[in-house]
């Protein structure tokens, strides 16, 4: 019964969303066993999730197998404006980053191939109604599902390499904010929604895994940047004030969001057969995210209006949102490092327990924090366990608690940087992420 329900939960994969739980809007919840070990993986051969962490290691995963995992990210966010109003928070939602991997190969062969799907980027935040930053952002839902085919080859029993073709299989973004205009009639504040799907695009990952002895393994891997390009996204407007309609004529937008490259290096030591300890560092090349640019097009007819008994006909300008045909917001992210440490201990033949932690550096610089990514240096603590029965089936469970350090930005910072499209104040976020997975080996 439990298994069946969990499989259904795994079915949430295709609509899976992710909370920002690594620097920027990256999500590091890509393997259930890894999650329990502070997110390490580049020097490990735990299971088929290796194809994400280090495709070079996949060839060293002994058994073939299929696994699914799903996490429930419960984010809690607090914001206090610099000007000293009250604290506001999120209308909280539960988001469920998920993953699926399958790896195959001849039992004693040197090859392994694999397919996988996971959600390495995403963010979902819904701010309280009427919060101070409502003209910057009220809601964001950024989703990206990647699919990967992988080949891995063990050159020697100690050294293996691998590479994957990575596809941004599904991506969409939904951004909403209020428009700072008021109507005489006391009508609701105008509201704009930008919603679009990313075009499918490709990238790759590659890795090398080296295990000189039973007690030591090292690995390096690289995951390329993939750009999420949106063309013909929908611009939806609600409650436009009639007389200002000529400034809100757009129906479509296009934008590009870089999903940056990551380089990882790690080491694992196995002092005994039961104990594995691993440490690694990830460098995420966030500095490619310089500006977020939107261009608007289309005509909703607001600009071109027929005459009415009281107003003359109007010929308007198409493709305007807020009177402009484009917008550019400064992001200027910085490359971010993350250090991870994790361990697992095999208590019995069936039960393995895990623990770990990480320190994840913020990608967003001071004075550039936006409500869409209230990023900050973060500390994460994890725990996990697996139970295997019949040497065939297993269940993984993990838990992550992530604490964002308090992050403040002042109005002076915003003015200095020309980033006044966001709001001065202090953010604080915590995320709790329980996760569960199932696997079968053969």
């Amino acid at each position, binding site marked *: 019964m*439990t298994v069946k329900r969990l499989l259904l939960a795994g079915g949430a994969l295709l609509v899976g969303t992710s909370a920002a739980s690594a620097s920027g809007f990256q999500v590091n919840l890509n393997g259930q066993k890894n999650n329990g070990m502070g997110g390490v993986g580049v020097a490990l051969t735990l299971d088929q999730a290796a194809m994400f962490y280090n495709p070079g290691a996949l060839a060293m995963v002994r058994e073939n197998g299929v696994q699914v995992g799903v996490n*429930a990210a*419960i*984010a*809690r*966010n*607090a914001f*206090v*404006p610099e*000007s*000293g*109003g*009250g*604290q506001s*928070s999120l209308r909280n939602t539960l988001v469920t980053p998920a993953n699926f991997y399958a790896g195959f190969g001849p039992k004693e062969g040197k090859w392994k191939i694999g397919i996988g799907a996971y959600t390495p980027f995403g963010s979902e935040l819904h701010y309280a109604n*009427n919060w*101070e*930053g*409502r*003209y*910057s952002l009220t809601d964001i839902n950024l989703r990206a599902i990647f699919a990967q085919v992988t080949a891995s080859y063990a050159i020697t029993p100690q050294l293996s390499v691998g590479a994957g073709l990575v596809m941004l299989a599904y991506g969409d973004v939904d951004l909403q904010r209020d428009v*700072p*205009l*008021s*109507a*005489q*009639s006391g009508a609701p504040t105008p509201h704009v929604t930008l919603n679009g799907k990313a075009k499918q695009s490709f990238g790759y990952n590659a890795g090398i895994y080296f295990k000189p002895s039973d007690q030591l393994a090292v690995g390096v891997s690289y995951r390329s940047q993939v750009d999420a390009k949106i063309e013909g996204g929908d611009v939806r407007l609600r409650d436009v*004030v*009639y*007389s*200002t309609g000529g400034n809100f004529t757009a129906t479509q937008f296009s934008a590009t969001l870089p999903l940056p490259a990551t380089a990882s290096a790690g080491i694992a030591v196995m002092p005994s057969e039961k104990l594995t300890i691993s440490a690694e560092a990830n460098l995420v090349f966030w500095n490619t995210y310089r500006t977020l640019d939107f261009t608007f097009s289309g005509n909703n007819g607001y600009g071109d209006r027929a005459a009415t008994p009281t107003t*003359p*006909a*109007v*010929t308007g300008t198409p493709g305007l949102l807020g009177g402009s045909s484009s917008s550019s917001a400064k992001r200027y992210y910085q490359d971010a490092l993350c250090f991870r440490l994790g361990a697992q201990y095999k208590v019995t033949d*069936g*039960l393995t327990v895990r623990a770990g932690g990480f320190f994840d550096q913020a990608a967003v610089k001071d004075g550039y924090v936006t409500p869409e990514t209230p990023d900050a240096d973060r500390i994460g603590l994890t725990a996990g*366990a697996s*139970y295997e*029965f019949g040497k065939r*089936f297993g*269940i993984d*469970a993990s*838990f992550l608690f992530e604490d964002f350090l*308090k992050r403040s930005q002042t109005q002076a910072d*915003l*003015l200095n940087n020309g980033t*006044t*499209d*966001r*709001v*001065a104040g202090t953010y*604080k*976020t*915590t*995320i*709790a*992420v*329980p996760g*569960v997975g199932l696997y079968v080996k053969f």
Partner: protein
Amino acid sequence: MKRFTTSSLPALALLGLVLGGCQPELDQPTASAGSADFSRYIAVGNSLTAGFSDNGLYREGQLNSYPSILAQQFAQVGGGPFVQPLFTEAQSKGSGYVQLLGFTPATATALSSPITGTVAGNGGRSTATSAPYTKFLDPINNLGVPGIRMSDILTPGYGSLAGNPYFERITPDATPLQTYLQRVQATVASIKPTFFTEWLGNNDVLGYATAGGAVASSGITPATTFAVNTSYVLDALTAGGAKGVVATIPDVTNIPFFTAVGPSFRANLDLNKVPTAAPFVYTTGVLAPGQANTRVSTTIASVRDANGTGNLLLTLTASPYVSLYGRPSGKYWRDFYRQATGAAPTGPAFSGFLTAIGVTDTTKGFGQATENPFPSTLVLDGTEQTNVTSATNNFNATLTAAANTRQLAIFDSNAFFRGVAQGGYVTNGVNNTAGFISGNLFSLDGVHPTPRGYAVIANEMMKVINAKYGSSLRQVDANSYRGVLFP
């Protein structure tokens, strides 16, 4: 397996809920009064203090006056009740005000421009004999009186039949000749304020400026009068040991009343391919019936455009007339005559009036010919701007010195409004500017703030109060206060 799933998974889920349910709490600085005592606050001033907006005083503006916003924030640190002479709900339209009806459609040769209309008020004394406003005679904390000048505070009967209708509205019937200063003194004696704001003096130069420097009766207040009266009012306010804020007055040449029309006039001429070398003839100095006036002949290039080149500022009241530039039109002069005499602009009387002020041929291009010049009342030229600026600086020096002598906080509204004019003012992600209609901060009269403008002023005042008195008043979210309302 069974045991594991039944025991561990619920435990994990519970852990997730417990930790995930934990809402982070941010420490907020506790609001405190510092060395100030906000328990009894009074506000002294003019239209800005009363909450005047959109060319009228009406209930919504009163509710969003900066003293009202301040009082709400003071209430968090021990501030007491703050009574304003509000118009009732039934008379919420107050004196009447201007509202935006729409925009004219842009055409190939004309820019779109705002269309405004007037919301009728509740009568009020527009002439000496018409009915007064319904009086409000409860004790009040907001003594803001639209139109009052520093030079008016000693005028007996300022709130009488012939005086200021807003002061009349709050003047007890028993003391019809009470001066504003006496009213302040009486209020201090009865309320015993612990804190005050004082923002008088704007009208001592504003009237001159909005009249294009062309009306003798709206001359700039003499510096000595201003200084003496400033001392009187501040002495009255501090008599009981109250602390407070003195606001300086802004240089009005930065406000939309003077910056909106010129640039759109210039842009329109550009659209119509009128060269900047085309003549622009205007009168300068006092413009009054029967009085000859001086002509200045210059070119369109002198009118300040959107880039800030050109030194002539056109007033918002010039808006209905600029489109007549270059046309054979006597419209302005007919309106002027009607306003000055109340009579219809026809017959020998009107001809004689025109001849006396030197307007000899209204079939010549308006604003282009010496015989049919652009009127002084609609132009603030370089000399007049200098008069405005030097008077403003002079008054501000007086106010600052008087405040410093009494160790009061100073809100330098001149520096603040200059900053707004140059760089706008951001409120939580919203760019507000000193632009007319689009800027959110100035109401449709181009002079007085919108509720958002007043909220921003209140926030800026709280900054100087905090700095001076070591208090930590919390600012308001200015975006919760409206800018211009669109139809």
